[in-house]
């Protein structure tokens, strides 16, 4: 790194967030799979949150059109009660994605706070937290989820998100802790301590900003985990939900025996496809993010 590559004094610089966003999109455009993932995410977010504003909810269907195959009227066919499948897909994304977002947010928040404090405070508090996290990590998550859901019986999506978060924080917490342990030995953190800048400043201004990329990547991964967990719970009928939800569509398909009807293919396949495509978009995007955030992997 030499002075040779420095921008000249007086280079116009845009405000940092805008500059970062443009730079980010530029780097993303160089990674086709990441770009596809990003477009996919944008698509699904629009589908789940914006489209329902324009497409009214269909409560009942035309019983003369049970399990119809796709046609101009019903682009994805109909379900066991003659309801339009496409409509259900449009309506059903909101809940599943909201739960994923809230779960990811809670998980990341808890893991980051606990991991940072644990690393900075050390001693017995640290040892205790690490032990708890280790226990949570060794227990098979699905079993615990099933047990907790059976006991807690979450009736709305917020409660479900809380339940999922209870388990999800352990892995990220250990990783955040490891990162903070490294960062706190950095020269600039030592300087901040020497200058007596205070613990709050050190955590929020010196350490956490250097983990931004890390946290974002794990947030997205937490979303994929939450989606899988939801689908598992709902399909197994462990969550007494009503309303519109892709996973619920699968649940009903299963209980209505749709798996045995060839005509019901689109009813079963559409939510599966939606879930898989959403997950794929998230994963492709995250892979590109890892590349982008790691300056050494960035090729010129």
């Amino acid at each position, binding site marked *: *790194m*030499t*002075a*040779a*590559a*420095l921008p*000249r004094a007086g280079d116009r610089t845009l405000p940092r967030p805008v500059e970062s966003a443009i730079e980010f999109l530029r780097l993303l455009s160089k990674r086709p799979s990441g770009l596809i993932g990003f477009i996919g995410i944008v698509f699904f977010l629009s589908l789940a949150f914006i489209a329902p504003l324009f497409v009214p909810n269909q409560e009942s269907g035309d019983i003369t059109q049970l399990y119809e195959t796709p046609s101009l009227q019903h682009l994805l066919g109909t379900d066991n009660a003659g309801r339009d499948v496409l409509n259900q897909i449009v309506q059903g994304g909101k809940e599943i994605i909201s739960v994923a977002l809230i779960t990811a947010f809670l998980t990341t928040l808890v893991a980051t706070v606990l991991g940072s404090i644990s690393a900075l405070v050390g001693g017995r508090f640290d040892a205790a937290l690490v032990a708890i996290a280790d226990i949570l990590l060794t227990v098979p998550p699905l079993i615990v989820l099933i047990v907790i859901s059976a006991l807690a019986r979450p009736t709305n999506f917020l409660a479900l998100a809380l339940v999922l978060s209870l388990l999800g924080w352990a892995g990220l917490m250990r990783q955040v802790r490891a990162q903070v342990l490294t960062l706190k030995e950095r020269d600039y953190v030592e300087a901040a301590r020497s200058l007596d800048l205070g613990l709050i400043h050190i955590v929020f201004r010196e350490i956490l900003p250097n983990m931004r990329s890390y946290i974002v990547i794990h947030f997205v991964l937490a979303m994929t985990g939450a989606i899988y967990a939801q689908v598992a719970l709902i399909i197994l009928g462990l969550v007494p939900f009503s309303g519109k939800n892709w996973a619920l569509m699968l649940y009903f398909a299963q209980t209505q025996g749709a798996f045995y009807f060839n005509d019901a293919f689109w009813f079963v396949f559409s939510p599966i496809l939606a879930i898989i495509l959403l997950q794929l978009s998230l994963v492709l995007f995250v892979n590109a993010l890892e590349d982008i955030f790691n300056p050494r992997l960035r*090729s*010129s």
Partner: protein
Amino acid sequence: MTPILSVRDLSIDYRTRRGPVHAVRDVSFDIAKGETVAIIGESGSGKTTLAVSFIRLSPRSAKITKGQILYTNDKETVDIRTLPDDELRQYRWSECAMVFQAALNSFNPVINIWEQFADTARAHGLKDSKKIHARAQELLDLVHLDPARVLTAYPHELSGGMKQRVLIALSLMLEPQLIILDEPTTALDILTQRSIIDLLGTLRKKLGFSMIFISHDLSIAAELADRMITMYAGTVVERASVTDLFYRPRHPYSVGLLRAVPRVSGAMGAVASIPGSPPDLIRLPPGCTYVPRCPVAIPACSEREPDLLPVDMPDHDARCIRWKTVAEQVGNAEVAVAEKIATA
């Protein structure tokens, strides 16, 4: 006598998003059999880019845009640039070997030193373990290390000086004619530096190889070099014998560099840093690249970059149209430049 390595008008660019970085520009020099040449420059001078190109170890983003690297042994002369892969393998290590900076993770941390030797030997066609072992012991003895202790050790168990010696031993395995050393004494303690320098001097006398040093440290050039090249912003700015360059430099950058390095012996002299910083290698100015920092620059200097011009001493070139002014300031006395300028 044909020089064993002859670099002619070599230019190397790096591809970057802001445009090509002209890391090495029109570099030419020769090195004769048994000669030691020091290439001195600071960060951004292009010296390391230049050195790794001699064994074609440049990163993928580097591209040689023009020039030749002509290597001659007893049999023939080849251009390293265009050497086919199988001949390149032969060239590397048995004709020309490179010693990297030991401090910079040059070792595989999970294998011990014996396996490093074995890997290197096998990669270059030696298969007999017994022979390799014998050769390893011979080489470690040559660099004053105890083979019994070192061969079974892992890199992290060795000190910086020992690691540097192992790297030197490895480089000598196939008796190359030319050895390139990248910052061989940087980041080493004083007494360790001394032992490495003495070792290189002894080995050179014993085995007769040619050496190219790359360093920002003038003192290693003063210790071992026959000839010196100073590089600035990717190009050669002065080429001379070592005594000529230290006592009778003709390029303002060489003068600046000599004045910027404090010494322990002798009078302190007029020690001063060079103001400013090196230029942007992507957008080079039209004239001489040293103008913004040069105390003797005139308007003509900014018009076009000067060629390497011969000066008033034999076998001595400087890329400066004001070399005569520099010669007046510095004179010819066999005294350090910093001292001369102080009394001037």
